[in-house]
């Protein structure tokens, strides 16, 4: 593993971890996250009502 390899690995891993941590913080401090933050897993297509 070369020094450049270490730099790329650590920058990539810590960069992604930092961004994910920032998002967790934003969701946890959101005023109404459970109602307003969504993903396909929790969005209910309207057609399923029929």
């Amino acid at each position, binding site marked *: *593993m*070369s020094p*450049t*390899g*270490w730099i*790329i*690995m650590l920058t*990539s*891993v810590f*960069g*992604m*971890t930092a*961004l*994910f941590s*920032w*998002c*967790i913080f*934003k*969701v*946890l401090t*959101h*005023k109404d*996250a*459970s*109602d*307003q*933050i*969504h*993903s*396909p*897993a*929790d*969005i*209910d*297509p*309207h*057609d*399923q009502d*029929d």
Partner: protein
Amino acid sequence: MASEKWGSKLGVILAVTGSAVGLGNFLRFPGVACANGGGAFMIPYIIAFLIVGLPIAWVEWAMGRYGGKKGFSSAPGIFRAITGKDRSAQIGTLALIIPVIIYMWYVSIEAWCLGYAWKYWSGGMQTIVTAAQQAAPTDGKIDAGIQAVQNYLLHFAGIVPENENTASGNFRILRQFTQGSLPFLLFCFTINFILIYRGINKGIEWFCRWAMPALLFCALLILVRVLTLGTPNPANPDASILNGLGFMWNPVGHNLIDGGLVQVSFWEALSRPQTWLAAAGQIFFSLSVGFGIIMTYASYTKKEDDIALSSVSAASGNGFFEVALGGMIVIPAAFIFLGPESIISAGEKASSLSLGFLALPGVFEYMPAGHFFGGLFFFLLFIAAITSSLSMLQPAIAFLEEGLDLSRQAAVTLLGFITAIGALFVSLMSHGLTVLDHMDFWTGNFCIYLLATIEVIFFSYVMGLDRGLKELASGAEMKLPKILPFVLKYITPLFLLIIFGWWLKDQVFSNGPYIQALQSDPTVQLTVGFIIITTLFFSLLVHIAVRRWNKIEATPQEESP
């Protein structure tokens, strides 16, 4: 009360991450990264994440919710609603065929995950290992066990060459059914359609919240084991974890020429358009951007929903699983247990998606309770894949309902028939995974790239940035970057167009490997022919839907005095 709220917010993070994480993170990313320059690949990857992935994810959420307000949930309807022109609906055809065709091969990999989980937990893998070890000399027992579990995939997935398979035709189908992945494929296919037929979204959400922490925990355990492997075979000191990490992260690419490994320099790897196309393609694939899936789901959201943060949360959770876990586990393990030549040839001969199935069993042989964790890991991957594959079906279902006025059940049945043909095609034409690999390239890279380029140009220049960004900002608590309008108007389209033009020049006009295969290999011609026929079929359906929408819109005017 406070802890309850905290718990429900944590549940939101798990649900968002759970629906974003899939096979692309643990199985596709490591192979694509390694085949395109290892550490050098991370530079186009990060650039693509920031200036293409995130902005286009926002574009899809905003366009989707805007279309939903106009009463449309499918991409053809949304494009038509934005411009008011019928021909725009045909752009949406791409957003229908991409997830449908990807589903056809994705469900096969899903079946492999389930098959591996079953094999580990039922003791089948232990039987294979024991049989191989009994036949091996005393000092080669561990290696013999690892070799046996690696060879298992070749027969289970039907990758073995024709001459090793002893027969073709009906016997081959029988063999795939009795010893291969076909029963698992049928099970996965059925379970997907039962879930989507009944519309059990709440169950999936619940599953995500429980399976996600378990997958994270399991992946962390495997990561720790991989990082502490050291040099498992003292007779082969080069096969060490440090060299494995170096193979993944050093900014040096590798090519296999006449069976020997040839290094490709950092700048040479970066000067290949294929590297940039693959990086953008991987970002699109794993973020589910450029599929049309997000557009459909966003159409069901309300104006007070925070789609900006929803989008970034999914993207960042996905990036974390992909880079921090996927990138650290599979390739270092593959380097130790398969060797560098096999990593490159696996990517060239049999889709890079197969690498995880070849390499990880080696790690489980070195883990305490390895077969239990092996089963758990593949089962959790299967769960993660289910959440992704279900979402791939929704855009076409929404279109069949609103475009052709089919009931949900009728739409699911028609789609089930179409995807069954494709899934069987992938499963039965599995030699060398040629069909899977080329379907992945032409839809998972090429078509997604094309649609994403069209979407961002459409958003910035047809829908208009003011209208689009207003939609995105509605309900958003986070501040959108001030540079976003500039990025969406100039940087992203220019980046995508330059890479695409560069790739066309390098691959199409200079006969690159995918074009050469298209010219000479009948299986590849059949695969691309299948994609074209599916596209034409959906294009015809879009045409019929547009005529129907026009008729509906004209009816009240005729009735009014």
